[in-house]
């Protein structure tokens, strides 16, 4: 099947021990705070939290192997890219201490590719890895850990209006239907000799060749939406404030978690305001480089 829910109720999962609203709030605080820092001394606690949550989530490696390998690949790729080009870090550090310089033994049109391995560049790449990995792994946990049936009430609980919150539920409800329609169209077109694997050409051409898949799927979704709207109207959707059958209740631990989240974000703000948390290189490393 094309669409399968990743969420499962897991035994002894730390993240699932909390109310989803509390977790979403904590997650937002965590994310914003992490992205406020470049200083590894400040980033490491976040990294530790992310690793702890991951390790206690009850997820099995085989469940998350593919997305995690993707994230790791993605993070390493971008860290390497900034490392090689020296771009991206330029705003957070001004001076560089050269460890070694690599120069290509050839030049192209007068330009000789060279790579300056500096303490700052190398350490910046490490910081970037830690920072992005912390946020990415926490984000990735959400679809595996929060029950999709509770998304609507979670957003309602975060004070979003009824119709926007219910739209979340509705999306969750129709994703599998959409997936099934997509599979049907895929089968129907393959039976007409359409081969997705053989799509070639430029970007524009490739998009055009997806038409046999995208047009029927879209049209089907539009036709289907008429029924969905009728069904909602006929059952009095949107006439007034609605009761949400599912009730979420905060426990003491949820308040603690939210308080912790708020504390983190406040501390980050204060630290940032006082000028802490900028990119920092251990002086010992600079010394090693002879700086």
């Amino acid at each position, binding site marked *: 099947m094309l669409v399968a829910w990743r969420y499962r109720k897991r035994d002894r999962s730390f993240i699932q021990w909390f109310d989803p609203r509390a977790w979403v709030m904590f997650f937002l605080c965590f994310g914003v705070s992490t992205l406020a820092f470049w200083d590894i001394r400040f980033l490491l606690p976040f990294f530790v939290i992310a690793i702890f949550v991951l390790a206690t989530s009850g997820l099995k490696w085989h469940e998350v192997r593919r997305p995690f390998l993707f994230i790791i690949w993605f993070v390493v790729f971008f860290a390497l890219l900034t490392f090689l080009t020296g771009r991206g870090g330029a705003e957070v550090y001004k001076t560089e201490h050269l460890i070694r310089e690599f120069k290509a033994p050839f030049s192209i049109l007068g330009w000789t590719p060279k790579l300056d391995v500096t303490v700052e560049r190398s350490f910046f790449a490490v910081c970037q890895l830690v920072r992005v990995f912390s946020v990415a792994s926490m984000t990735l946990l959400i679809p595996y850990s929060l029950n*999709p*049936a509770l998304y609507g009430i979670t957003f309602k609980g975060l004070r979003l209006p009824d119709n926007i919150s219910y739209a979340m*539920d*509705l999306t*969750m*409800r129709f994703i*599998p*239907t959409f997936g099934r*329609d997509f599979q*049907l*169209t895929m*089968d*129907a*077109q*393959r*039976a*007409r*000799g*359409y*081969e997705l694997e053989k799509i070639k050409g430029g970007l524009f051409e490739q998009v055009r060749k997806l*038409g*046999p*898949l*995208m*047009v*029927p799927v879209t*049209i*089907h979704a539009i*036709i*289907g939406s008429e*029924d*969905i*709207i*009728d*069904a*909602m*109207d*006929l*059952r*009095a*959707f*949107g*006439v*007034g*404030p*609605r*009761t*949400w*059958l*599912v*009730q979420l209740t905060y426990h003491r631990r949820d308040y603690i978690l939210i308080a912790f989240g708020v504390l983190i974000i406040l501390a980050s703000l204060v630290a940032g305001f006082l000028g802490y948390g900028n990119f920092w290189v251990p002086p010992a490393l600079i010394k090693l480089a002879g700086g």
Partner: protein
Amino acid sequence: MAESPLIVENLSFRYRDRPGAAIERISFNANPGEILLIAGASGCGKTTLIRAVNGLIPRSYKGQVTGRVLVFGEDTSSWKLSQISQKVGTVLQDPERQILGTKVLNEVAFGLENLGLPRAEIIQRVDEALAFLKISDLRDRDTFNLSGGEKQKVALAGVLAMRPRILLLDEPLASLDPASAQDSLDMVRKLADEGMTVLLVEHRVEDVLRIRPDRVMFMDMGQVRYLGALNGLSKVVNYKEVKLPAEDIVERAKYDKAPAELKILPSAADPSTWKWQSETLVKFEDVAFSYEPDSEILHGINLEIKRGDVIAVLGPNGAGKTTFVKHAIGLLKPKSGRVLVNGRDTKELSVAQIAATLGYVFQSPSHMLFAPTVRAELAFGPSNLKHPKDQIEQEVKTALKIVNLSDKEQDPPLALSFGQQKRVSIAAILAMRSRILVMDEPTAGQDYYNYMNFMDSILQMPGFEAILFITHDVDLAVIYANRVLLIADGRLVADGKPQEVLRDLDRLEACRLVPSSLLALNLKRLPQTGRFMRAEALAHI
């Protein structure tokens, strides 16, 4: 006499963006505990009438209304939709598209949540509705994984929880297998017996007879052509327009000309058009399949599809019919055993290569139509198969001619009527020169008159050497097939001539199929006729 729950007075409606009235001067009333059957062909105005009664017209569908709808004596034109929905409940045609909750509990509670009722009352009403329909065990299930019949009941429970006094059902049987359909109908009878007023829209009149509708209303071109007792219906309507019981058709058809004998599969009878000489086109050798290691879906299927076969594949939902058919067209490859198409193992062939032999028409044409013109749509398959350009030109022209759509060549397929779209999807297969036509539920979404014509014309089309179709409708097998496959629990439980396979009524029942009046009549007459035939033909024997 008690006040009529529903009175419709001189009601007409014209959609804002369409010419002509969709319904015109409709008047009737419905009594407490009455089941009023509303029959008629596609486009006769049934759905418009339902929308006018449940208030979607004119609130969601704009246009010009004249006349009145009175619910318990009050004109509903000034009511809010939420008010109407507490008196008039509506179950739409496709349960898949009206189930809005991820869980059964949330789905059934949806309307009550919207009304802002207290939580305890919601739970109580939900449990009552589930218990009434005997589906309390589904309460905590995910709605997506329910069967069609279960979905239908859950949708009904969601409506009943709002405690309406009038229930509108718009072709509730369309997406169900016959046994689930009967089950749903029994629920409707039970509701009526408890005082609910039921308006049931259905063009397969025969299928709803067992719940004894009190009256029937026959609509045509937006007007009421007949309103009265059921036994009067067959005298006023054309037996080709609605599906009447076989005995009634025989009675009426006696006085008409005998129908012409179908010349099925002309290409199978004409050796000059054969693609290959071998008589066996497709062969299944001990085919087994599973998606997951421990749960086999198909077990040991052995059969051959031969030239001249018109095969009906019957069986309950989830029995593996579609999985079986997907093996023939190579969308799935067997886990063990093999499938040979024209002598070659499908494991060595791509789906595209197989498409040159077997064409698969899906249930709903909108799952495959995408091109800006009918012509481009038909050229899609052959150009994927790398046919030369001038050959494609010829193939498209021939295909259009066969399905009788030559004048629509430049039209966008999505703007055509449903029946025409269905024919475009067949033509798309014809244009690829596929020799075996495979159809999933060929009659789905069409009314009786249209689908009978559709089947008649497909069977007589030149170009195909064999046809195979999946269906729930025993009558299609009786009328059109010369071979029936019965699939249950992933096994081929019967394979033979219709008169051999369909004779075993117990086995049919075990496969959730419901013997029809036509089957019963054919079995009775079999000693004289020697084969199955349609009711119109039986009338002349």
